[in-house]
């Protein structure tokens, strides 16, 4: 049972990490980085570290995404492109 939880969360985490590296749109990259942090916090719970999981979910998936979103908006990469813009 624990093996399956760990296996699924590791697979989700690695797929999201590859998506962070190779997606073009920075909106999607920020969402994928948030998914990495959430899968990592599930993994921390499975490894008997609930306090670390709490901090990772709050800080890694919450504050980090907000910081990235604000930076991308300042830099001008945070745009919701439609088809006609491309």
């Amino acid at each position, binding site marked *: 049972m624990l093996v399956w939880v*760990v296996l699924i969360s590791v697979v989700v985490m690695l797929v999201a990490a590859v998506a962070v590296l190779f997606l073009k749109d920075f909106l999607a990259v920020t969402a994928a980085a948030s998914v990495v942090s959430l899968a990592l916090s599930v993994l921390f719970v499975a490894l*008997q570290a609930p306090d670390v999981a709490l901090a990772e979910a709050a800080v890694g998936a919450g504050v980090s995404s907000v910081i990235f979103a604000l930076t991308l908006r*300042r*830099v001008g990469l945070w745009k919701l492109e439609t088809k006609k813009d491309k």
Partner: protein
Amino acid sequence: MTEETTLVDFISYVGAISLILLGIFAMVTFRHLIRIIFGLMLLEAGVNLFLITIGYRGGAVAPILVNGELPTAAMVDPIPQALVLTAIVIGVGVQALALALVIKTYKAYGTLDTQILAQKIAEETGTKLIDGIPTPISDTGTGLEESLSTKP
């Protein structure tokens, strides 16, 4: 039970080392500054997972006192957990600092590509693009290559 815990350890170590390798790959390969910071984020996550996995013991419970007394079962190692709890917060601080520097860089130079940035900084400060050594002011050529060429 022991096979299961060794399997949990193995899968977790594989995930941690893969995350570290992906982060190093991103930081070395990519040219966009924000992608480099995303690589740094993956690297931090991998190192945190690695430390937590070192402290894990199969069949142990979380290191928390229940009603003020120790649990009867064995506990996992709490020292790496305290370390990682600090490292997560420090990691977010490092990200915030790096992104603030990215914003300042974008406002100063108008680009985030590291090679274009290197060219612009080299033109602005009058240094060579490759090594950052200042080019000589006079055209007599006091550079290293002349002394090397006249040496033999």
